[in-house]
């Protein structure tokens, strides 16, 4: 992971070589800044941040020199726990570079890589859910639903291929769970109260339309079960 090597290694370069810095690498610096650079690196970081010129100079070849490798190994100790993962990587990379002994092309290619923001384990489900919702929204846009909306849902049923089943009712609750966000519709059908839970982003649902809205002061309208059937009747 040279892209991780370089932000750490770069701060060790003497100032006259800072100019040759890759603007893309500056992203690494800004991330570095957010982590709080040590006083050792602070001044150099600010200088290089202003430079936006892109040079593949032979200056970059200096990375292969052994001097900087020595500094790379000494500096991680000075840095107060920037990133525990990066330190062993730095050392391993440093050894590899020393072994290669000054291959300029390798170092010149690596600065080209854009710095990718790290995806943390805790974010993955959120990202996957967002992607799935976007994919479903492309096929069929879903309106904003809240408790108290009177909606009409058109559902495709495998048996009834010609006609879409229509379900009308009041939304009595909405459970947010990413792609499995569900709404509960209540209605009096043929004299009997019926509650149906629909997954909002299901591909079977061909249309959701908000017909009306009733002012409610609650997120879950379970009290409608005990009230008069008149309040759950929708024509």
């Amino acid at each position, binding site marked *: 992971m040279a892209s991780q090597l370089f932000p750490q290694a770069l701060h060790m370069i003497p100032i006259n070589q800072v100019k040759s810095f890759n603007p893309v690498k500056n992203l690494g610096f800004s991330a570095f800044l957010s982590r709080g650079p040590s006083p050792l690196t602070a001044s150099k970081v600010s200088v290089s941040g202003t430079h936006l010129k892109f040079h593949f100079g032979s200056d970059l070849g200096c990375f292969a020199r052994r001097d900087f490798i020595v500094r790379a190994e000494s500096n991680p100790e000075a840095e107060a726990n920037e990133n525990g993962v990066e330190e062993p990587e730095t050392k391993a990379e440093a050894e590899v570079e020393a072994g290669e002994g000054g291959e300029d092309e390798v170092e010149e290619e690596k600065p080209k890589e854009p710095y990718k923001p790290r995806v943390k384990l805790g974010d993955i489900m959120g990202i996957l859910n967002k992607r799935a919702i976007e994919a479903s929204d492309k096929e069929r846009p879903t309106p904003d639903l809240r408790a108290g909306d009177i909606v009409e849902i058109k559902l495709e049923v495998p048996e009834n291929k010609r006609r879409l089943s229509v379900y009308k009712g009041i939304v009595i609750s909405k459970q947010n769970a990413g792609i499995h966000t*569900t709404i509960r519709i209540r209605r009096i*059908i043929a*004299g009997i109260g019926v509650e149906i839970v629909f997954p909002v982003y299901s591909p079977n649902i061909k249309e959701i339309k908000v017909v009306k809205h009733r002012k409610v002061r609650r997120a879950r309208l379970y009290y409608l079960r005990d009230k008069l059937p008149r309040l759950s009747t929708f024509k």
Partner: protein
Amino acid sequence: MIQPQTHLNVADNSGARELMCIRVIGASNRRYAHIGDVIVAVIKEAVPNTPLERSEVIRAVIVRTSKELKRDNGMIIRYDDNAAVVIDQEGNPKGTRIFGAIARELRQLNFTKIVSLAPEVL
């Protein structure tokens, strides 16, 4: 989740008004009946001057439960009451009309007559 001693409404015009489940048909020691299961029930209340009378033991099929019915597409259906339709030994309804919405699952369980008489199929 209908079990023995459960009182159910009757969803047809067979003459019974209220049933009490006394047995769930299926495996021995079967605990609960859901929508589409056949039960043995006793008539607790009946409409006067009809063929069915109080304390008669008959078979019925569950058509509405307060316990949710889950479908593979993620839909969940829940009724406000528990109800059954009185049937004979073959599975044909004794009444001529059905009241209330019926779930589609009954068609797969060969209660096609009930589904066709239903005012609304969910």
